[in-house]
């Protein structure tokens, strides 16, 4: 089965325009802000596997604090280097990421917690900012799939679900203008689409990992340990 639209990223504004046409309010821009907000909310609410991504970026450290990037969920690793390019102080360890810069020994030698940091209110906060030898750090992290403004990125396949959510929310907001069965129809479409999208992304994730899972199982089944 070929599932299209996973990698075709479209703007949330496209779902807003579709919903406006459905609701027949295309002659005004008054509700564009409201609908855009709801579209972003819907994408976060779907939460299927395609709405998360592993990313890396360089952040500036100012006064011992580095602002986290948009969509940040979980830190995977942090890498800092001085002006000579020498890596140091790597308190969070993700070996593949730490050694990606070419410093092979970094994971074993400079990973002390002598200048650790923690995450507070959207910032990486260093415990001893005066000891820092750099004003930049490179981090790897799990993120929501957002654009540079923090708005969720939507793929083509999400459009129908988001459109239904927008229509549902709008008709609830203006309930006096829309009959109950219309509201329920939009709600039903939204629920079905959400389940469909989640199921589809799970299946794709499994397909992607199947080879690796198979290899692990084969190794386990055929290993010497099982012969004992």
């Amino acid at each position, binding site marked *: 089965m070929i599932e299209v639209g996973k990698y075709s990223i479209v703007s949330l504004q496209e779902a807003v325009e579709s919903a406006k046409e459905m609701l*027949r*309010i295309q*002659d*005004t*821009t*008054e*509700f*564009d*802000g409201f609908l*855009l*907000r709801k579209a*972003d909310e819907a994408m976060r609410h779907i939460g299927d596997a395609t709405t998360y991504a592993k990313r890396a970026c360089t952040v500036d450290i100012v006064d011992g604090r580095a602002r986290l990037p948009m969509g940040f969920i979980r830190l995977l690793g942090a890498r800092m280097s001085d002006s000579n390019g020498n890596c140091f102080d790597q308190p969070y360890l993700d070996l593949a990421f730490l050694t990606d810069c070419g410093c092979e020994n970094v994971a074993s030698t400079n990973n002390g917690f002598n200048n650790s940091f923690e995450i507070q209110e959207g910032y990486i906060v260093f415990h001893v900012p005066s000891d820092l030898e750099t004003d930049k750090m490179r981090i790897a992290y799990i993120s929501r799939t957002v654009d540079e*403004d*923090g*708005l969720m990125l939507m793929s083509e396949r999400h459009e129908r679900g988001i459109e239904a959510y927008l229509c549902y929310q709008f008709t609830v907001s*203006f309930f006096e203008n829309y009959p109950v069965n219309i509201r329920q129809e939009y709600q039903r479409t939204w629920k079905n689409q959400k389940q469909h999208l989640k199921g589809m992304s799970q299946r794709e994730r499994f397909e992607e990992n199947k080879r690796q899972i198979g290899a692990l199982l084969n190794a386990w089944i055929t290993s010497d340990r099982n012969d004992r």
Partner: protein
Amino acid sequence: MADEGGIFTDESRYDVGTMLTVLNAARAFAITEMYRKNTRVHPNFIQRVYPEYKKNLQQDDCYTLFEIPRTVEINDKMDGLMYVGSIKGDEAFWKVRTRMQLSSRRNHRIHKLAQKKHIHFLYDTTRGYLEIYDPKVKYPLVEGIFEDPTSVPQFSFDHDEYPITNDAMKRIEDLVRRGTIVDSMRMPINKISNSQEDSNIQRDVQTK
């Protein structure tokens, strides 16, 4: 006005100005009625305005003010402004209904973001101004349904047609006839000039 017993004299208020006001009101009513039925506005009703940038009108560096005529409120979602945007007509600005809404929207990150990415406007009906929240906008285009189509700056009595459709004309004729002319004919003539609404009393006296 409605106590002349159907007799129209030079002193009647049925002059061109009054009738034009009645006509405009009936037109607005007909448009609202048609929108309720069809959920659309016929293009014939829409007029185009190129508001003039006046330097002495400006009050703030954050937005530009333009004078525009009053519009017809069609329903709770449509205030008669069908397009406010770039002069080419390819970029509609985002509408903010009230100053309160503008203020409260600044409390939400997505609205704040939208305000940065899209030009917003506010139609201040109390002053008759259009506030466009981008000081760079000097030549906007406005398309709308205006209360008095003849007061639109670029309207010419000689060259432009009154913005109306045949259907609406028939409806307006009915409305004006029923609401204004028939009402005046129903009322008996007031012969005594005493600034009193006493037409009925006079009729009763005459009958007796």
